[in-house]
């Protein structure tokens, strides 16, 4: 049955059938072939798996991100980032990365970050004489930080599937997110310095203060979200809801760039992007149910524990596997299917659930920029009409820096665990 399940899934994926449909069709075929569970369970599970209040954080964060983008926030974040580091070598590339980090603290998804910042910054870099493939690679790489810096949709998914605290995961993502940002900026700086990409003129203190004041309402949003969750004031879903209301007020009444007539379009776009993720979550749950029925997680756990008793080696094995999976699999689907497999193994080895959650999300995020299949590469290529090969050429250094940082995050648990432990 497992062969049928994975075989059919692989064939459908190769044929570019949507992931949700591939997961469901593979599961249904496997059920028909093996008669292990009644088919009607599929109908129930599709509903029951998304009938969840914690998962509602996903559409709310999507709406909040879209509101912020339309409401003129991304522009202000870019201006603020530019006033801080725009004057260094490769200023615009550094600004792209820093602004993506700021935006990541509002939005929970990687494609949203690429679209919000990239649509402004890639043309800006090209105008300044940056190599187009370098500009594209910079944005593709900066985009994955969107799911590492909280809030993060994959962290919500991981929390719901494994019962780990979503608030704890959010807090734990902060320092690793900042580290990845720094690593990418270092690469951008060195490449720009070698290519002679000069920066903007240095901003005066008063200019920095002005840019900060303009963007303060956007920068406050993560404080409200995380402070609210940590202060025990609201659940992550309620925090996401408050973010929507906050974004609405700021966009409509403070910045006044948002119009009531924009709202249906924003809701439509948010509904589409949340629906894609939720449909994948719901079909992946059916797929995952079958794996559990076949005791696959237990078997894989046994194999891994047989290979090594050393948590360090185990983490290396898991890292490699997740990176490979992350290059071709949608992040949330990978979490729903793989988290229940690896989670028990990690618990037996004494790895903290929050630390493991961060490792998983980070790996899958880096998978988004790993050639030949990384999804961010495709999204960024779509923005600039370059071929994958052209972008990959400029992307190697970013990838190496990311892998190095991944090593740090994996083997120094304090980097993830310090903040949540301090606050809990």
């Amino acid at each position, binding site marked *: 049955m497992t062969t049928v399940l994975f075989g059919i899934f692989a064939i*459908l*994926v*190769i*044929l*570019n*059938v*949507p*992931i*949700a*449909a*591939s997961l*469901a*069709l593979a599961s*249904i075929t496997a059920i028909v072939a093996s008669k292990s569970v009644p*088919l*009607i369970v*599929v*109908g*129930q599970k*599709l*509903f029951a798996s*998304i*009938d*969840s*209040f914690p*998962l*509602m954080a996903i*559409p*709310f964060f999507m*709406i909040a991100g879209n509101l912020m983008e339309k409401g003129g926030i991304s522009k202000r974040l870019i201006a603020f980032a530019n006033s801080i580091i725009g004057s260094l070598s490769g200023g615009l590339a550094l600004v792209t990365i820093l602004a993506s980090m700021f935006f990541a603290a509002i939005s929970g998804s990687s494609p949203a970050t690429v679209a919000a910042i990239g649509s402004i910054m890639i043309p800006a870099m090209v105008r300044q004489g940056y190599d187009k493939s370098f500009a594209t690679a910079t944005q593709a790489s900066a985009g994955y930080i969107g799911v590492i810096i909280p809030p993060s949709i994959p962290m919500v998914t991981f929390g719901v599937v494994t019962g780990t605290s979503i608030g704890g995961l959010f807090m734990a993502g902060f320092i690793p997110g900042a580290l990845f940002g720094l690593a990418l900026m270092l690469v951008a700086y060195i490449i720009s310095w070698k290519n002679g990409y000069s920066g903007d003129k240095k901003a005066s203190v008063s200019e920095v203060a002005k840019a900060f004041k303009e963007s303060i309402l956007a920068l406050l949003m993560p404080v409200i979200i995380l402070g609210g969750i940590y202060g025990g004031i*609201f659940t992550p*879903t*309620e925090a996401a*809801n*408050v973010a*929507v*209301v906050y974004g609405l007020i700021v966009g409509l009444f403070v910045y006044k760039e948002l119009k009531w007539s924009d*709202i*249906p379009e924003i*809701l*439509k776009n*948010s*509904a*589409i*992007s*949340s*629906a*894609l993720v*939720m*449909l*994948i979550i719901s079909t992946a749950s059916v797929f995952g149910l079958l794996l559990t029925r076949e005791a696959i997680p237990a078997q894989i756990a046994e194999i891994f524990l047989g290979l090594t008793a050393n948590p360090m080696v185990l983490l290396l094995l898991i890292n490699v596997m997740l990176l490979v999976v992350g290059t*071709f699999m*949608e992040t949330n689907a990978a979490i729903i299917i793989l988290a229940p497999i690896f989670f028990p193994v990690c618990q037996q080895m004494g790895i903290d659930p929050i630390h493991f959650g961060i490792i998983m999300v980070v790996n899958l995020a880096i998978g988004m920029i790993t050639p*030949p*299949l990384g*999804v961010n590469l*495709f999204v960024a290529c779509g923005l600039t009409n370059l071929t994958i090969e052209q972008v990959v050429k400029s992307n190697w250094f970013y990838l190496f820096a990311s892998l190095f940082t991944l090593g740090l995050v994996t083997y120094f648990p304090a980097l993830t665990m310090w903040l949540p432990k301090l606050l809990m």
Partner: protein
Amino acid sequence: MEMQEAKFFRCLTRFEMAGVTVTLGLMTVVVFLQVFFRFVIKGSLPWSEELSRYLMIWAVFFGASMGAKSGAHIGVEAFTRLFPRSARKAAILIAGFFSVLFCIIIFFLSAKVVGAIYKTGQVSPAMEMPMYWAYLAVPAGSIMMAVRFLQATVIKWKKEGGNA
């Protein structure tokens, strides 16, 4: 014929738009009320969580239908890109076929669930609303999605160069 087709899709679009705006809009209001009541009025709403969950599920299926139309459902394009042109065209039809098949199967399976719940007369715990109203989102959404996948496949096929 074409006129009627265009009219049909216009109606469907309007229906989806209305559905999405109402469900997501209400969901936002309901959860905000939940927070507001707890803080300001110090009382909790017994029905807010349940209602918002069901609204979300409806929103997901409306959104899924709109996503099918705009070709937003994520697949893995990396392999079909490598195919020669004729094979790529065949792959469009195959992917479209399986997407529609997925919707039809989901429609029948979930309709069965709705039927069963209708018969038992099950109501939701907090609002005591008939449960089939919530479950109905799945079959209703999958039938809309099937139509949209069909439409998207035809459009994509034409873009790749017609019947040649």
